[in-house]
């Protein structure tokens, strides 16, 4: 069994999780969509990495590739590595992969109502992994389920443990999902748009809860979202994705203060500000690209105010623009200096 158990503790000379040059294609009847085109990022213990991007940027697909729950077909992983504690998940056998899934790396999803099984009580679902993967007895698992529900601040957990998902409100359901994901004490939690389906006040509560839990359990977190507002308080670092690539990677303060990529700049500028009442909303002109026909060179060039000739031809490499900051833009330094001041 030693093959399948993974040691905890500091990772000697490496990151906890590292995605290296991941490439994923979706092969459909209508053509091949290049959904992920060379994505690399890393995560260290106790960190929160936010992956920011709009629909179709590939942020969820990357997470599903990490978890190993992509539907193949139509998805095909065509290149790259995903290293967890130094071992490449993509080369593992399925049983080894399953040992990691849910236990070391757990995931929560956007819409808790459809993500939870409607015919089983929530306590049963939370305790399921405890009973079937850790061999706990029914009573012990149930007790632990109640503890977990209390940890995520669901009131009257003792009675509500027998209730069904549709009997909870949206925010409570999301807490149930979080409790379920944390049942086996994972080292990493991937949260895929956890608050998108909730209203603003509930959003804040859930984000606070995630922040607390992360600190208490000393867990690393990947937060996937399209919502700049959600990210600011919780994340340590941000990776911005566009058309299946990481276009900017920075710590959260630097990114908000001075973005180094036109896309990030556009996103930040389009956030409505309370003190800009009366003026027009800024937008990024154009539309996100069709992933079956990604523009040549830099995928963002048709919409970019800084575009030059080289942008049409050459895919921009990741340029280091500061301490622990990269930007995939031919005009990165220009954008960066333009943002400051």
């Amino acid at each position: 069994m030693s093959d399948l158990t993974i040691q905890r503790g500091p990772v000697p000379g490496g990151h906890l999780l590292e995605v290296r040059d991941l490439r994923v294609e979706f092969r459909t009847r209508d053509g091949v969509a290049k959904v992920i085109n060379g994505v690399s990022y890393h995560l260290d213990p106790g960190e929160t990495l936010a992956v920011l991007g709009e629909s179709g940027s590939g942020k969820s697909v990357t997470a599903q590739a990490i978890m190993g729950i992509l539907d193949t077909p139509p998805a095909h992983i065509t290149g790259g590595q995903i290293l967890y504690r130094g071992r490449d998940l993509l080369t593992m056998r399925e049983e080894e992969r399953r040992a990691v899934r849910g236990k070391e790396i757990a995931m929560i999803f956007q819409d808790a109502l459809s993500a939870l099984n409607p015919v089983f009580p929530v306590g049963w679902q939370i305790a399921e992994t405890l009973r079937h993967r850790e061999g706990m007895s029914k009573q012990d698992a149930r007790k632990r389920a109640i503890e977990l529900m209390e940890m995520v601040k669901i009131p009257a957990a003792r009675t509500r443990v027998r209730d069904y998902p549709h009997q909870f409100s949206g925010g409570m359901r999301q807490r149930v999902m979080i409790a379920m994901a944390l049942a086996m004490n994972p080292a990493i939690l991937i949260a895929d748009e956890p608050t998108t389906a909730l209203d603003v006040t509930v959003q804040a509560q859930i984000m606070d809860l995630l922040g607390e839990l992360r600190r208490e359990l000393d867990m690393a977190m990947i937060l996937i979202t399209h919502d700049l507002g959600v990210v600011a308080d919780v994340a340590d670092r941000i990776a911005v994705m566009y058309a299946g690539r990481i276009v900017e990677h920075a710590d959260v303060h630097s990114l908000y203060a001075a973005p180094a990529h036109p896309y990030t700049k556009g996103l930040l500028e389009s956030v409505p500000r309370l003190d800009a009442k009366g003026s027009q909303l800024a937008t990024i002109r154009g539309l996100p690209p069709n992933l079956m026909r990604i523009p040549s060179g830099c995928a963002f060039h048709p919409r970019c105010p800084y575009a030059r000739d080289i942008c049409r031809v050459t895919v921009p490499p990741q340029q280091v623009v500061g301490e622990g900051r990269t930007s995939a833009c031919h005009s990165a330094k220009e954008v960066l200096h333009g943002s400051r001041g």
Partner: protein
Amino acid sequence: MLRFVVRRLLQMILVFFGTTFIVYWLMFAGSTDPIQALAGERPISDTVRRELTERYHLDEPFLVRYANYMANLLCGDLGEQITGRKVSEILAQAWPYTIKLGLLALAIVAVFGITAGVVAGIRRGGVFDNITLMITLIVIGVPTFVTGFFAQYVLGVKIKLFPVTSTDGTLHSLLLPAIILGALSLATAIRLTRTSVAENLRADYVRTARAKGLARRRVVGVHVLRNSLIPVVTFLGVELGNLMGGAIVTETIFNVPGVGFQLRNAIRLEDGPTVVAIVSILVIIYLLTNLVVDVLYAVLDPRIRYE
């Protein structure tokens, strides 16, 4: 939950009276001479005519006749055949055959239908799936009496695998009729299960279950199946009622002396009272099974339960 059952019971009573009224009306109101309707084509002497009129209150208006009939029905008096035999006696003898036949057919449908449907649903588009679709289509398309007839001829007469008729009511002799009787339901059950499984396999909660690291066997065998079987089980419940009706054809072909057989004889002999009596009983059974199925549905699907 209790309110739900009570509401459905009340509906059921309403529907019961409505349907039996229609059946009674169809049988008796159409003909201008009710006594002639009772006797079919046989000539009736005056004394018999007077006696029948008195016995069946035939000089009273239609509604009163219906009311009398229903009152008798609910007390268990199903009237008499033209020959004088009590209908309830005939039915009591015939019932066991039909029940055995029906349950056997239902068992075949449940076991093979669900298994085949699950396999087809999991490997949608595969060889098994396409073959099953073709076969089920043919079964649905060819009327039961044709398949029954051919099965009897090929398997009973030519190959002699099964007895040609089942007058003895043993399990072996009822096997072929049960297969034929259940064939249509089987085809529908397979298709229903297949669609339900295929739909549920794409559901979000399956993705969550996989993300929890559960084995595929468990994800499909517990999570998907439990959701997929809800419409199938309710369908099976309703089918039991339908099987009773469909037994008419099967019992006729295979000479099984059950309720359907008696009904067909009654039709041929134009025995009005028997026809109405049998159909009324079958309607009650059908309504009852529907009620049970509705309750079952609430038990199986918690979303319905807490309305």
